[in-house]
């Protein structure tokens, strides 16, 4: 899992470097979570992305698409060379997730707050048919400004959607600055717990901790689970970590050097 996280990060940085700009921060903060989900947690078949028995992932913070694209490519959903086409004219890898364009993307997202409702709808449909598939959703802490998130929380608890696990990527920075300065989120874990979720907070860059939290959540019956990920926006690239304006970055020459160094370091660790 740790190596897979490194591989994802290498592909992710390389694809953004090729483009010269992108949503680096929020992509880097969910790498470990994606690495865990796609290392045996999710029931998937990369050769058959629309397999009905699969588990679903809705990346509600759709701007982190590049992190998921890297993961999907490494899992063999599509050729890894496609990663070099991020945001090209006519590409199948747009800045925000698109279920029609990209194999392995379960839901189109990008307008914040909407993906979580779609995830809840998928989970509800699975319950109605008495099936065993699970649904995972990743929302951002900035995204939790959106009222629709709380509508979805109420609905999922009321309907006992214990086949749903929601991750909150608490990287503490939104586009305009620190979340505490824009709209103070207070204690996200306590908030979501108050809605009736089984809730836990873990180090979002510790694969083992994430895996344990998922395994525990799977055993909880009757209520959905939420795993609050304590993360660092821009994790893995020194100089970007916790940079206040790292939501969407157009890389300077210095930053290019930093990112190339980060890739070199990760590659060295892998070899």
């Amino acid at each position, binding site marked *: 899992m740790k190596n897979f996280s490194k591989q994802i990060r290498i592909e992710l940085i390389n694809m953004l470097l090729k483009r010269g700009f992108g949503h680096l921060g929020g992509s880097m903060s969910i790498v470990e979570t994606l690495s865990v989900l796609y290392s045996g947690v999710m029931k998937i078949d990369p050769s058959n992305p629309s397999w*009905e028995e699969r588990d679903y992932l809705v990346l509600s913070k759709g701007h982190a698409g590049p992190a998921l694209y890297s993961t999907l490519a490494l899992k063999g959903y599509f050729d890894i060379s496609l990663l070099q086409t991020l945001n090209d004219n006519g590409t199948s890898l747009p800045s925000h997730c698109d279920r029609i364009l990209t194999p392995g993307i379960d839901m189109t997202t990008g307008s914040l707050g909407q993906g979580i409702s779609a995830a809840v*709808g998928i989970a509800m449909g699975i319950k109605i048919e008495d099936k065993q598939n699970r649904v995972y959703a990743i929302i951002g802490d900035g995204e939790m400004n959106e009222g629709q998130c709380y509508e979805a929380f109420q609905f999922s608890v009321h309907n006992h959607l214990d086949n749903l696990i929601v991750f909150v990527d608490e990287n503490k920075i939104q586009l305009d600055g620190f979340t505490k300065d824009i709209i103070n989120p207070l204690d996200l874990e306590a908030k979501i717990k108050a809605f009736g979720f089984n809730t836990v907070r873990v180090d979002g860059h510790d694969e083992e901790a994430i895996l344990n939290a998922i395994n525990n959540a799977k055993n909880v019956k009757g209520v959905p689970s939420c795993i609050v990920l304590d993360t660092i926006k821009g994790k893995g690239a020194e100089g970007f970590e916790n940079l206040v304006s790292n939501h969407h970055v157009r890389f300077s020459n210095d930053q290019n050097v930093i990112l190339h160094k980060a890739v070199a370091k990760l590659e060295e660790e892998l070899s």
Partner: protein
Amino acid sequence: MSVTILQEQINSPVELRSVYANTLSDIIEKNKKVIALEADLMGAIKTDSVQKKFPNNFINCGIMEANMVGVASGLSLRGFTPYMHTFGPFATRRCFDQLFLSIGYAKLDLNVIGSDAGVCAAHNGGTHMPFEDLSLVRAIPTAVVMEMSDAVMFENILHQVESLHGLNYIRITRKNMAQLYEENSTFEIGKGIVLREGTDVTIVATGIMLNEALQARDILAKEGISAAVIDMFTIKPIDESLLKDFAAKTKLIVTAENHNIIGGLGSAVLEALETSRAKVVRVGVRDRFGQVGTQEYLQEVYGLTAQAIVTAVKENLN
């Protein structure tokens, strides 16, 4: 399409809300992949009977329209066919971005029933009175936008949208409407219906304005003016070829809608006839908000009457 047009419209005792509840039950009876969604308004549209009969196929989402559309998108992803009802403003304005992205852009399926078309919202007043719902949904690429003309049509269209992919918006009034078509008529989405032929002017109308248009036709006939009346229940995609035929035949087209003249039927007809030489005049709500009142009073206030259509015809017919 196999439409039998009644020569005289009848005062139908059937409420469209009963048609919705009964037809939905019929549909779910045969297809367990159909799910009905409500946002705490099942009492208003009588779908509590559907919930009782098919609890597994019915979700009351509470007063959370944005989430309801998202839930519908998730259900659609799992191969279900969702039908969602709420009042028109809440089914469109309130959750417009959700309809646009989670359904339209994501290429998923949802049948939206928006109730109490325009002034039919009567005593619920301006907050509940949609004069812009058709305009909004029309702006979503590939969406199908319809307004029901009577109970017979509503039942048939509810069955048709079961297998029509994408976002389909069906505007209704919950109460009874004049019946224009014989029972068991079937309709073709995207095709207008010539209710009456005429040679001097063509009145193109939808919903409650069809009854007004037919009355206007009678008044005009007494003055020697021959008016055709077209039921354009599909506002998008609009029946361009029928409009062009009548634009060539009558030179004057008058549209009549229970909706703002900006963005609704009148606009759609103007767009369809942009290269035609026919003159198009719009009767409808002139960029105003709603208010409380009886339907009759509000039709007077906003100029949604047979007389308003007659005036528009006479002022514009050379």
